[in-house]
């Protein structure tokens, strides 16, 4: 069997209604996986579903900042499509806010969705009743901002850095169950999130950001392909790492 295939695997993907999460869903389905999609917007989830290969896929519309609802999402997913082999946490929010405009409530809103929702999924997904523990794999979409900084990104960087490091401890904690845990740190990828960011910039600043990426800015498939690799059995000896995919941004 092709080690890079996801055939027969069931993958749960948060943030599957847009951007990176949507492409992960499409690419995983093309690699043979059954996918369960989670995000808030029902119409956009339906649109993702319409792009999937195969037919057993299923969506759950849920606001993941309601952290108490996550166990039920996992439960209903397993009931519908069986135990989970893979997880991608691509739901996230981004913002450019200098510290003077930040406060505890705002930090918490970044952390709730970027970090805590992902960790709550881990809490349930790693239980034997919900997870196929031979070669299960969890992937968290962090960001290069989780290891590097930029003005205006204190809250976002803090949340992504938390994710990058939580992954290492999870990898150790779950190794005994054969569950691998890794993060992916993309540089700038063209998605609705970055279109928003670019819309607020003048042409020069936009070009400056593009120029920071030696290979240019990325596409959603660049990230989705790496997710497939980490979810596949080809990556069965990879855990606790942070895979940087940034067209060379952080090599400088």
């Amino acid at each position, binding site marked *: 069997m092709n080690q890079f295939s996801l055939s027969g695997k069931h993958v749960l993907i948060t943030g599957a209604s847009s951007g990176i999460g949507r492409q992960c869903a499409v690419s995983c389905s093309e690699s043979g996986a059954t996918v369960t999609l989670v995000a808030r917007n029902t119409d956009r989830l339906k649109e993702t579903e319409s792009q999937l290969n195969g037919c057993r896929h299923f969506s759950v519309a849920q606001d993941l900042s309601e952290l108490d609802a996550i166990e039920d999402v996992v439960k209903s997913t397993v009931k519908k499509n069986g135990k989970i082999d893979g997880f991608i946490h691509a739901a996230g929010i981004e913002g*450019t*806010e*200098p510290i*003077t*405009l930040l406060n505890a409530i705002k930090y918490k809103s970044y952390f709730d969705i970027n970090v805590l929702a992902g960790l709550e999924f881990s809490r349930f997904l790693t239980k034997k009743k919900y997870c196929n523990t031979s070669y299960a794999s969890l992937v968290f979409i962090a960001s290069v901002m989780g290891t590097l900084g930029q*003005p*205006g990104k204190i809250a976002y960087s803090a949340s992504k850095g938390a994710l990058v490091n939580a992954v290492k401890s999870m990898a150790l904690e779950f190794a005994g169950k054969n569950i691998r845990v890794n993060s992916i740190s993309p540089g700038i990828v063209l998605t609705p999130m970055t279109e928003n960011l670019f*819309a*607020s*910039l*003048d*042409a020069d*600043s936009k070009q400056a950001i593009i120029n920071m990426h030696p290979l240019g800015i990325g596409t959603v498939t660049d990230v989705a392909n790496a997710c497939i690799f980490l979810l596949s059995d080809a990556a069965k000896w990879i855990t606790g790492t942070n895979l940087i995919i940034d067209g060379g941004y952080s090599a400088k």
Partner: protein
Amino acid sequence: MTKKEFIDLFVEELEIENTVVKPETQLNELEAWDSMGHMIVIGLVSENFDLKITASDLKALQSVDDLINKIGAEKFESE
């Protein structure tokens, strides 16, 4: 928010200490009117007026009054 309250907030957030800021004050004369200052004002305007302005919008402005007009003078309460 009145125009005066907005100017007070502008002064507070940009930490302007040695200049009395008035509607006719020239933005480029303020030391705090740099890229961090722009980022702060973009955030202030977004939070208080639910309006997205860009750094290039801000760079095109001359005076504090221009900023108020960019936001829309009608959006301010009368004093």
